């Protein structure tokens, strides 16, 4: 009965004739656990589609209501919070898994002949998924989304000649508003998923056409002239059917990933929404989502003079280099041990992205905006001080110095910590630095009166370890007698002009 039904459908669709080769095609015997990451990426993408469709049924893609509707999903809809948590965590997981998949393919040089276009479609998928992640952050329509769009608009603005037009196209109008959200909604739920589904289909069709690459072996080089023939011979002789030999590992890995995802989502819950998207609430401290923290870090560390050029040119170079990889070297050795340069490049890329992500997360270049009013002055910098010096400690807080300069490890890290500044700068140098500033420090000469300035410098000259000498200009007489440790040899002081 069931068999007859299957035959009936098969006669009219040819579905089994289509699916059977997908399951039975031979894959290398030695692939083992290296090859599970692509499958896991696809599983997370499936989760994104399913949870995304559900979210689209609940979400109000209107600038006036989006933020409220997310609160509604989180707090009113049964398990709505879990739905959002799954979508958010799966989004990050998909980016991570895709990066691992790409790294594995790069290290094993699986992109070489005849799989150049497998790699190229993969690169397009990478950028499509990153675009989905960015537009998804906008869907949250909170302060991070609003000011993140502002950052995107400011970068677009730097494009010569047509910057303003590009910015308008990005935002869907002259301001970040209703049409911006609608535009990003259309991209996030129609255009980009459509592109991703198409590219996934193409990527999989190319895998079927070109076969799964074998584990690289030193000396087993890729020769385009004979590769296909020999590959097919090896597969026929030594390959194993995809189902069940390789599929079992995909199943186990995907299953473990899904369980981990569900646990993460249930324990840590959804991402945001953060503060409401009201641009008059300027106490915002915008940060991008994880996949973009490294870009945020890189942009922050660039010297201002090269900034525009790098921000506009680097993404283009990045795309071109990634697309070009299989065309620069599509034959020869695949083993990492025979391609030390490529291993070095991959390691450096991973370390750079990891380090920049950490920098982006901690963002030491950002002033701590409430340090001046919220942090205590460490007691040991106040005891035994003169009234003028204590007054200087007050100026230090009230002039917001602490927002950029730490004391006792607390405060901003934009400027150097000042715990021992008196060992490095003389009172005259301190005065000059505060009055005139320099590239990364504003000049306070116009903003502090001379009484404040005197008090501040007098406080700063006390900031040193007790037994260390204060800074002095070589050749100048010591300003104060130095208390010495028992047994310490007096440093010879050059005689100053009489």
């Amino acid at each position, binding site marked *: 009965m069931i068999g007859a039904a299957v035959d009936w459908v098969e006669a009219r669709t040819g579905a089994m004739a289509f699916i059977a080769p997908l399951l039975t095609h031979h894959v290398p015997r030695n692939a083992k656990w290296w090859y599970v990451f692509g499958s896991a990426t696809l599983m997370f993408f499936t989760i994104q589609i399913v949870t995304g469709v559900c979210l689209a049924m609940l979400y109000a893609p209107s600038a006036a209501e989006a933020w409220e509707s997310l609160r509604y999903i989180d707090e009113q809809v049964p398990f709505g919070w879990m739905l959002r948590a799954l979508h958010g965590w799966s989004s990050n997981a998909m980016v991570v898994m895709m990066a691992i998949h790409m790294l594995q393919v790069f290290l094993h040089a699986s992109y070489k002949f005849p799989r150049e276009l497998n790699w190229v479609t993969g690169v397009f998928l990478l950028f499509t998924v990153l675009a989905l992640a960015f537009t998804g952050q906008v869907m949250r329509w909170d302060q991070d989304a609003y000011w993140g769009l502002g950052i995107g608009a400011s970068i677009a603005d730097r494009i010569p000649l047509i910057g303003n037009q590009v910015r308008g196209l990005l935002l869907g109008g*002259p301001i970040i508003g209703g049409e911006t959200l609608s535009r990003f909604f259309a991209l996030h739920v129609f255009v980009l998923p459509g592109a991703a589904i198409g590219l996934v289909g193409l990527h999989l069709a190319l895998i079927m056409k070109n076969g799964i690459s074998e584990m690289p072996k030193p000396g087993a080089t890729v020769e385009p002239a004979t590769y296909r023939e020999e590959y097919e011979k090896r597969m026929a002789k030594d390959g194993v059917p995809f189902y069940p030999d390789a599929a079992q590992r995909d199943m186990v890995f995907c299953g473990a990933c899904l369980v981990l995802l569900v646990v993460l989502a249930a324990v840590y819950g959804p991402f945001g929404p953060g503060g409401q998207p009201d641009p008059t609430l300027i106490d915002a401290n915008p940060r991008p989502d994880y996949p973009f923290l490294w870009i945020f870090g890189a942009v922050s560390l660039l010297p201002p003079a090269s900034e525009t050029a790098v921000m506009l040119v680097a993404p283009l170079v990045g795309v071109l280099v990634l697309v070009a990889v299989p065309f620069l070297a599509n034959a020869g050795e695949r083993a990492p041990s025979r391609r030390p340069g490529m291993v070095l490049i991959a390691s450096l890329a991973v370390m750079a992205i990891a380090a920049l992500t950490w920098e982006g997360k901690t963002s030491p270049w950002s002033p701590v905006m409430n340090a001046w009013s919220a942090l205590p002055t460490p007691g040991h910098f106040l005891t035994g001080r003169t009234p003028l010096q204590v007054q200087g400690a007050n100026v230090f807080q009230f002039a917001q*110095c602490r927002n950029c300069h730490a004391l006792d490890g607390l405060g901003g890290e934009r400027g150097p910590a000042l715990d021992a500044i008196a060992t490095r700068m003389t009172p005259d140098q301190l005065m000059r630095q505060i009055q005139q500033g*320099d590239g990364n420090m504003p000049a306070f000469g116009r903003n502090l009166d001379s009484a404040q300035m005197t008090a501040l410098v007098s406080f700063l000259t006390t900031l040193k370890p007790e037994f260390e000498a204060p800074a002095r200009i070589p050749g100048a007489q010591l300003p104060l007698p130095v208390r010495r440790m028992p047994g310490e040899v007096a440093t010879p002081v050059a005689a100053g002009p009489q």
Partner: protein
Amino acid sequence: MSERSEHRAGESPASGGGTKPCVNCGCAGKSAKQDARRGFMFRFGAALLGVGGAIAAVPILGTLLAPARRQASGWVSLGSADAFPPGQTRFATFLNPIRQPTDGDSAKTACWVRCISPGKYQVFAVNCAHLGCPVRWFAQSRLFLCPCHGGAYYEDGSRAAGPPPRGLFEYPWKIDGGNLLIEAGHLPGLEQTT
């Protein structure tokens, strides 16, 4: 796909010559006249599609591209000019004059108003000239500080320190009937003159 190949099979010389009726549609088979007619019909259809597509493209491209050239702004009141005492810099908000019905909270806009002396003002956008984050005014150190990358500006809006390539963006202002008005609208940015 399959219909097409069967059609061809009927026409092919192997199955009985070029004039044998096609097995599918019973047509007289391949002939130069019919080829010409089919070619014409195809081109005619393509032309129809072109004409229809061109007309349909007007609203499609209009929707996609119109935001590239809208750069509107308008005058909006910040309230009584007396609310901004000389020597001080104060926070002010307004509803964007070019807002759309669906903008919600995002139509609210903030600015910093500095009254230099009675009747003389500077009105700054909150958007940092570096990457557009909202700058905050610190009256004690008389500085604007940006929370993102530490851009700093003096009270007259000029760049003090950090990565911004220029000073704060300013709105044109005027006094009308005792009220302070500014010309605002589009998001301030580097490519604009103000």
